[in-house]
């Protein structure tokens, strides 16, 4: 169960991996915008990851993740053939699908993965899809070919100018929305990526009055609507991302509160990571300095 059947290193620094997991029941049900929760081993925490792709025939679920702490580091070390202890989903509400006319998808960093899944479904519903995909630097970009194959137009940006357009995704978003101001073809913006990026994607579209969906990623525990860890403020109301979301109206989200709530455990995360590195270094897993560095 939950066997890893494919793994690819998308970039090394920061480390980003793609994995395909055998999870036929989830693959059958999953739709764009939904996520899974996984737990690597008995000591592991439950971490949510957005579904990047599914393969119905083979019963596979694709995840793309960046190593940001111990759990993702440990996940990144699993190899093809190994199993993930718990793989739970699909969770959250799928992106509401409709023929919106033209949809502008803005994907940043590993947000490219979930956006890809949504673009595919948007196309099935007859939408014209314009995709902006951006990353800090060229190495961190992936799936440009896949995006080009699906989208009607694709714009690529890098913060450092090492590839595509030099600058942020929001610069292109601004231009496209301005260009469209008179036609009014773009009826929906979907922004997925780092929280700070989503905040600015929403800020950029707000003056144009174009509805903007963002996919929130707060800290979660059960992800089944039991614990309330994932609460965010949307339009002045408390909402629970795991059951009410993950997608919300970006113009209504209190992003600053989300940023703060994502930083509840910085010290614990650091400690976990340090201990993990030590165990890695010794090779025997006990934390001593005897083994070889890996």
């Amino acid at each position, binding site marked *: 169960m939950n066997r890893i059947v494919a793994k690819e290193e998308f970039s090394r620094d920061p480390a980003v991996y793609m994995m395909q997991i055998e999870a036929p*029941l*989830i693959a059958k*049900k999953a739709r764009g915008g939904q996520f899974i929760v996984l*737990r690597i081993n008995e*000591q*592991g*925490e*439950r971490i949510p990851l957005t579904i990047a792709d599914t393969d119905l025939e083979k019963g596979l679920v694709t995840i793309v993740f960046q190593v940001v702490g*111990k*759990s993702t580091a440990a996940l990144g070390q699993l190899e093809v053939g190994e199993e993930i*202890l*718990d*793989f*739970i*989903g*699909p*969770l959250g509400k799928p992106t509401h699908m409709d023929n919106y006319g033209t949809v502008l998808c803005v994907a940043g960093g590993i947000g490219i993965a979930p956006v890809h899944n949504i673009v595919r479904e948007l196309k099935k519903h007859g939408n014209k899809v314009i995709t902006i995909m951006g990353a800090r630097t060229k190495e961190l970009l992936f799936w440009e070919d896949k995006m080009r194959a699906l989208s009607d137009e694709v714009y690529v940006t890098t913060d450092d100018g090492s590839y595509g357009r030099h600058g942020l995704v929001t610069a292109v978003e601004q231009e496209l929305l301005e260009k469209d101001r008179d036609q009014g073809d773009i009826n929906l913006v979907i922004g997925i990526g780092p929280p700070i990026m989503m905040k600015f994607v929403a800020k950029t579209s707000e003056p144009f009055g174009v509805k903007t969906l963002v996919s929130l990623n707060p800290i979660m*525990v*059960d992800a*089944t*609507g*039991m*614990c*309330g*860890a994932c*609460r*965010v*403020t949307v339009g002045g109301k*408390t909402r*629970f991302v795991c*059951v009410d979301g993950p997608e919300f109206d970006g113009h209504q989200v209190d992003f600053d*509160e989300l940023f*703060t*709530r994502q*930083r*509840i*455990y910085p010290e*614990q*995360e650091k*400690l*976990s990571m340090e*201990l993990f590195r030590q165990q890695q270094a010794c090779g025997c897993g006990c934390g001593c300095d005897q083994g070889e560095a890996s």
Partner: protein
Amino acid sequence: MSADKKQKIPRQPMPEQEPKVRARNFDEVPFGYSPETAMLEASRCLQCKKPKCVEGCPVNVKIPEFIGLIAEGDFVGAARKLKETNALPAVCGRVCPQETQCEAKCVVGKKGEPVAIGRLERFAADYERDHDAVTKPAMAPSTGKKVAIVGSGPAGLTCAGDLIKLGHEVTVFEALHKPGGVLVYGIPEFRLPKAIVQAEVDYLKSLGVKVELDFVVGMLDTVDELLAKYDAVFIGTGAGLPVFMNIPGENLNGVYSANEYLTRSNLMKAYLFPEYDTPIVKGKKVAVFGGGNVAMDASRTALRLGAEHSYIVYRRSEAEMPARNEEIHHAVEEGVELVLLANPVRIVGNDEGWVSGVECVRMELGEPDESGRRRPVPVEGSEFILEVDTVVVAIGNGPNPLVPNTTPGLELTRWGNIKADEETGQTSREGVFAGGDIVTGAATVIMAMGAGKKAAVAIHEYLQDK
């Protein structure tokens, strides 16, 4: 022994860890009776012809019979007698509110202290398990019918246990990675060791119950999809989203719902961080809002996580607290401080978005309300600040939304609970039964078990006609 003599024997206390010591560890608080003490306590029972205690028990455990067996020294026999009506005696002996149920009705309690039914129940069940004396009950021949149980809390487990004995094929679907519901994620280790819950689940598995973990019904198969594969469905999905106070500051860092706080500590073993990966804020000064068992569990957990001050902020007085007396007593003994007749009106934060205090207003008790409890009214101008770095809100839960939201035609109450017949658990959908907290709102383990039992009988009948 004459009744007179019996009445001279005092109710036997159960040895327990010293409050100071136990307030800093997660081991179980009471040690349980020794066989000698159990037999002595059992000898206090008058073996009433018309036992009042049984009337007080929601599942009508054969109380004098099992106590009689303990008095004779037949501890395994006592456990089997218990299990004829109660599938989880080791759990109930620990967490049931006996003082308002069986023990409240016990005739010995009229003059002195009632027979310690709960402690004896726990003793017998532990004895059987610890001596590997658990045997399989008589099983009816296979009926070829299949039942899906949604949720592995006490309601679901009880329903599963009864149906498998009746010869049906039973599969339990559980959303979390461990079975047991509140028994594993909510009630702390020091009150109910998780190994006991696991043993009960293992026992059900040994009878043939299949348990599918990590299976979120509604997101994977819906109830309707289950109905296509199974002959009947029982829904026991329990409580869901926590209720907050709706006061400013509730989304500050360091504010938890009791569900999250306890789930991190119990299910995810955050108290063993960093050996376990899930972190928890180990506050030095913790305020828990609420006065129920959940509040007691949270405040006692806070102490064990290293809090120097663990406060319970409750808007009425101690007499109105819904928690069991024993739990309040245990909490206070361990050092939990009760801040009574105080209502939080605002959580105060610092510049970094962390809790720094709670502003409360003093309350006084006015006229009784619908529940008969005197209604607390704020005293104007009496606001004060309690300095804390962690807040746990333990004022209740709504129903779990996933199944109701994905099951068309399932009638709900105004609050979103599933409507089900009290005697049968029958819902508005044919072949779909429900029971436990998802129907009643937050109640007790034994009530949930009672609902699971009744539903099992009704499902059995339904399957025979089908």
